[in-house]
């Protein structure tokens, strides 16, 4: 076990800088193993940026790097992202 591991809740504020919806309750389906996981339950590792990994197979789902004026977001391992919306 990596004691420095966090979870998707840790990057919730960063995601809300760019997304207008709460991202931790969005359901990400892993492109590797096919398991659906709420973004808040992903395993998060911090280096120069953040990597969000599938808690079932460790596949890298999302990468986040923030500079002073830009954020780079990669989705290398998400097949679909299911985001709840209000019924209208």
């Amino acid at each position, binding site marked *: 076990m990596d*004691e*420095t*591991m966090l979870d998707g*809740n840790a990057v919730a*504020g960063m995601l809300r800088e760019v997304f*207008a919806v709460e991202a931790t309750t969005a359901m990400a389906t892993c492109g590797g193993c096919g398991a659906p996981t709420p973004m808040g339950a992903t395993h998060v590792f911090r280096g120069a940026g953040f990597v969000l990994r599938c808690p079932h197979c460790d596949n890298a789902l999302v990468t986040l790097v923030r500079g002073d004026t830009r954020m780079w977001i990669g989705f290398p391992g998400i097949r679909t992202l299911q985001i709840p919306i*209000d019924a209208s």
Partner: protein
Amino acid sequence: MAGTAVLGRLTWRLADVVDVVAETPRATTLVFDVPGWAGHRAGQHVDIRLTAEDGYRTERSYSISSAPDGTRIALTVVRVEDGEVSPYLTGELRPGDQIELRGPVGGYFVWEPEHGGPLLLVGGGSGLAPLMAMIRLRAAVGSDAETRLLVSSRSWEDVLYRAELERLAGDSLTVVHTLTASRPPGWTGYARRVDADMLATVGPGPAAQPHVFVCGPTPFVEAVAEALVTLGHEPRRIRTERFGPTGE
């Protein structure tokens, strides 16, 4: 408030320190008034940003420990001796000071009264903070959701919110302590790390399908979540929040 609504982008705002409360020898609760605060849900957190005179900036996340209460929020910070942020927050801030924060953040690790019970809450150290928001909300709205709270602390004097928990415990709220490092004389409670036997005794078991919330340092959360799954709790009913090895 629905957790699914479009919220708009999150921006930093200035919060006023209105109260500083010593909880334990190492932990301090900071009460803020946040102008324009639209409320929060129990379990959510805020990000705090500190800026040094040379422009260096650093951020930390802290769970809100108070129930929704107008524009006020309370955060409990444990001092990490060699930490970058917590010695300042716990030792330097005074009422009247201002600090930058943004939030509320998070929607996954959240309990609402309409979710009902039973509830199984397991907190390690300052991981009790977001669970306390749930317990305070539960009390504030008069919920009778069957709730078991298991609190793991290093010593009796390190237990957060101890007097308040004693007051709130009653028919439908059971509070169980385990002390991992030292015990007061005559201690008859648990004196070890949380394990499957302890969780099975504290209950409620998987047949009752409790909503389970686990918060603490990463090794604590991993061990508790694994024990819960071993006992037969469904992984999707176990919500976890990890704050790293030290919380700093």
